[in-house]
């Protein structure tokens, strides 16, 4: 967050290279978030519009939320503005169903652990993220999640939006959002677990 504060300070002082750094950090995230809202063709437009709005409004950003949360809210509004013009190309009708637990096979018939959770070598987020290869692996597996889980994980964990906002943006119930988030986290946990056990992605 300190790095973010520094960038924002430079930006307010009119340093365009700070804006470039912010774009570099968050553009891919904005596009990924917009894809389910407007489709892949228009997602880039949403991100562009978001930067335009963000650039104009950055002095009003008070830092009460993460910058990423603030940008995500702008992007959702921009996506809605586009879909109001009838440009939505994606159908989310099949979204929200629960595929079941990805770790169901790790329990016996009585519901007790059969395959035990392993101890990790690194057990804080900072330690885990200090490994470059792991960061790459996280991104790879994030993209491999089912679309609905991926969107909810991006909106909740990366963007820091609350359940109600996510439910409204995706047209799902908050209960669906919770289930999708849990399944997505479980799958990402399985990925981290594999990495910690085997040492490769």
């Amino acid at each position, binding site marked *: 967050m300190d790095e973010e504060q520094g960038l924002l300070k430079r930006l307010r002082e009119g340093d*365009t290279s700070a*804006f*470039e*750094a912010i*774009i*570099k*950090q*968050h*553009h*891919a*995230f904005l596009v*990924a978030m917009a894809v389910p809202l407007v489709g892949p063709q228009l997602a880039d437009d949403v991100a*562009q519009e978001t*930067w*335009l709005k963000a*650039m104009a409004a950055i002095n009003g950003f008070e830092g009460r939320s993460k910058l990423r949360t603030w940008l995500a809210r702008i992007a959702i509004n921009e996506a809605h503005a586009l879909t109001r013009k009838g440009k939505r190309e994606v159908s989310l009708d099949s979204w929200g169903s629960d595929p079941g*637990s990805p*770790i*169901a096979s790790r*329990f016996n018939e*009585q*519901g*007790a*652990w059969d395959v*035990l*959770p392993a*101890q*990790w070598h690194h*057990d*804080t*987020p900072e330690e*885990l*993220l200090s490994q470059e290869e792991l*960061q790459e692996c*996280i*991104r790879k597996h*994030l993209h491999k999640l089912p679309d609905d889980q991926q969107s909810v*994980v991006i909106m909740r*964990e*990366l963007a*820091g939006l609350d359940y109600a906002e996510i439910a409204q943006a995706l047209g799902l119930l908050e209960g669906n959002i*919770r289930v999708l*988030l*849990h399944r997505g*986290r*479980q799958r*990402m*946990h399985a990925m*981290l*677990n594999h990495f910690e056990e085997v040492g490769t992605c």
Partner: protein
Amino acid sequence: MLTCREMSELGSDIIDGQLGLRTRLAVFMHMHKCSRCSLYIEQLKVTSEVLQQTSLNGQSVDPQAILEKLNKPRE
């Protein structure tokens, strides 16, 4: 009494503090006795924190091209 399977299903509600009092108590009792579930729930929490700090890859992003487009007059 909650089973370990049920604990794993409640995982996100546990780390997000979304449980009612009765279930919270049952979870607390289970965790007290079950180091396996404690470990799983703790790791799920770390997973969530890792994701919160994850950035998507911006390597192919060209900020200058984006800025140029922003500065162009609208058609």
